[in-house]
C-alpha cells in the first residue's frame, strides 16, 4: 500500500465530496432559476469527480473499501479536505466566493496533475479540467458581477472574502505527503501554485473592486485531518446518516 498516495487521493476526493455536498444544499432555493441549474451542475460535477478520486483511493489502499465506503463510513478525523470546502454556505455571495477561491486553486492544481507521472491521475485530472474550467469562469464572473454591482452586493462580497480568506492559505501549505508526491512526479508542490493563484485572484478582485485582506494568516488542519472546523461533523451526520443507520442495506 502506498500511504502518501492514498492520503493524496483522499485529499482530492474529500475536497470535491465536501464542497459538492455544500453546493448541493442550495437545491431549489437559489436567487434565480439559472443559478439553481448552475449550482446543481457544479455539485454534480464535483460528486462525479469524488467517485473517481475516492474510487482510486480505495483501489490504492487495497482493503476492499470503495468510494462509497470511504465517503459514508469515515469519521471527521479521517477526512482530508481543505477547511475552505467545509465552511457553511452563508448567503449566495459567501457560497460563490468560496467557490471562486476553491475553483481558482482547483483548476491550477488539476492542470498540473494532467501531467502527472501516474496515468490514472492524469486521466482524472484531464476530465476534471474540462468541468472545472467552466466552474471557475462562472464563479469568477459572479464574484466580479456582485463585487462591482450595487453597494449592498459589494459589501456582501467583501465580507465573504474577509471571512473566507484565512482558509485560503492551507491550500498552499505542503507536508510529507506532498513531498512524496513531488518526489514521485505525481503531483506539484502546493507552494509552487501560489504565484499563479495570486495573479489570477488579483486580476479578478481588481475587476470586482474588492480588496484582498492584508493579513495572510492561514487556518490549517483540514488536509492533514489534524483539526477540522466544527462544521464538518454536522455535515457528516446528515450525509452519512442512512448508511450508518442501516449498515446492512444496499441502496
Amino acid at each position, binding site marked *: 500500500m502506498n500511504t502518501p498516495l492514498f492520503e493524496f487521493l483522499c485529499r482530492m476526493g474529500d475536497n470535491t*465530496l465536501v464542497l459538492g*455536498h455544500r453546493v*448541493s*444544499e442550495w*437545491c*431549489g*432555493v*437559489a*436567487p*434565480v*432559476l*439559472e*443559478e*439553481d*441549474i448552475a449550482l*446543481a*451542475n457544479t*455539485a*454534480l460535477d464535483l*460528486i*462525479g469527480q*469524488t*467517485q473517481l478520486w*475516492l474510487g482510486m483511493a480505495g483501489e490504492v489502499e487495497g482493503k476492499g473499501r470503495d*468510494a*462509497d465506503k470511504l*465517503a*459514508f463510513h469515515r469519521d471527521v478525523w479521517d477526512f482530508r479536505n481543505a477547511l475552505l470546502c467545509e465552511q457553511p454556505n452563508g*448567503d*449566495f*455571495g459567501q457560497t460563490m466566493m468560496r467557490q471562486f477561491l476553491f475553483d481558482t486553486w482547483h483548476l491550477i492544481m488539476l492542470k498540473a496533475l494532467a501531467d502527472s507521472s501516474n496515468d490514472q491521475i492524469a486521466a482524472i485530472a484531464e476530465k476534471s479540467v474540462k468541468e472545472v474550467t467552466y466552474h471557475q469562469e462562472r464563479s469568477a464572473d*459572479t464574484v*466580479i*458581477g*456582485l463585487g*462591482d*454591482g*450595487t453597494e*449592498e*452586493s*459589494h459589501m*456582501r462580497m467583501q465580507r465573504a472574502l474577509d471571512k473566507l480568506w484565512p482558509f485560503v492559505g492551507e491550500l498552499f501549505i505542503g507536508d510529507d505527503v506532498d513531498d512524496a508526491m513531488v518526489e514521485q512526479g505525481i503531483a506539484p508542490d502546493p507552494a509552487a501554485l501560489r504565484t499563479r493563484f495570486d495573479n489570477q485572484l488579483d486580476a479578478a478582485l481588481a475587476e470586482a473592486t474588492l480588496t484582498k485582506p492584508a493579513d495572510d494568516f492561514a487556518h490549517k488542519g483540514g488536509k492533514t485531518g489534524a483539526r477540522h472546523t466544527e462544521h464538518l461533523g454536522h455535515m457528516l451526520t*446528515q*450525509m452519512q*446518516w*442512512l*448508511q450508518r443507520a*442501516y449498515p*446492512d*442495506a*444496499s*441502496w
Partner: protein
Amino acid sequence: MYAQMIKSTGQGVKSLDEMEPDERAFQERINAGGKIEPKDWMPEGYRKNLIRQIGQHAHSEIVGQLPEGNWITRAPTLERKAILLAKVQDEAGHGLYLYCAAETLGVTRDDLTRDLLSGKMKYSSIFNYPTLTWADMGAVGWLVDGAAIMNQVPLQRTSYGPYARAMVRICKEESFHQRQGFDIMMKMANGTEAQRKMAQDALNRFWGPALMMFGPSDADSVHSAQSMAWKIKMNSNDELRQKFVDQTAPQAEYLGLTIPDKTCKLNAETGHYDFAQPDWDEFFDVLRGNGPCNTERLEARNKAWDDGRWVREGLLAHAAKKRSAKLAAE
C-alpha cells in the same frame, strides 16, 4: 399531470359556423393537426388558457425541486446523489423551457413568479406532500413522474408549437426520471426488511396523491371540452388516470408491493384495472392551501426569492455598468 383544474373560457365550445373568419381559420388549422406559432392570430381565451396551463406546469417543476432536494444531502450513495442532482437539475431546466414557452404568449417570467409567490397561481397538488424516507425518492420517480408522463407524452402533439417542442425534450428526461425511481423502488423492495417497509409506506402515502394529479373527473367540464377542442388538452382526466393505474398496478405486483386499495384488480371484462377514487375532499383541501406542506413550500420559494433580491439587483447593476462603459468606449 402537472396542470390541474385549468379554467378555460367557460363558455362552451363554439361550432365552426358560429366563429368569425379568423377564429374559424385558427380552429380549422388545429383540426387539421397544424401548429399555432407565437405570431399567429389566436383567440384571447386560447392565449390566457395556455398561459395558465404552461405557467402552472413551470411552477410545478420549480416547486417540485423542493421535496427531492429534501433528500439530496441524505442520498445514501454517491451514485444516488449524482442521479438525484441530475434529476433536480433537469426539473429546473424544464421550468426554464416552460417559462420561455409562456413568454412567447406575452407574459414575463417575473410576472409568473410573482403570481406563484403570492399564491395566485397554483402548482401541482402533489408537491404539497412531504418526502419522509429515502423510498419516497423512488415513489416520486415511479408514481409522480409516471403520472406526469401520461399527460406529457400526448402534449408533444399539442397545438401550440413552443409548448409541444418543450414537451418533446421534457418527455425524454421524464422517462429517465421514472426509470430511476423504479430502480430505487426495486432496490428497496428487494432489500432488507426495513427497506421493504419504507417502500410499502411510500406507496401507501403516494398512491392517492398520484391519482389526484390527473384532477377530478372532467367528463362534464366545459373548460376541458374547450381545451380539448383547442388541443391543449389531449385526453380526459379519467382516461389518463385509468391508463396510469393499468400501467402501475402490474409494476407494484412485480415489486411485491401492495397498492393501498383493496378494490384495485384487473377486470377481465373491461381488460382494465378497477380502482377506488382517491379522497377528493383531501384534494380540494390541498388546493385551498391545507396540504401537509403548502405553507413550507411557498415559504421556501418566497424566502429564496427575497434572499436572492440583492444578487439579482447586483448582477443587473453590473451588467448596466458594463453596457454604459461599452457605449462610452464606442
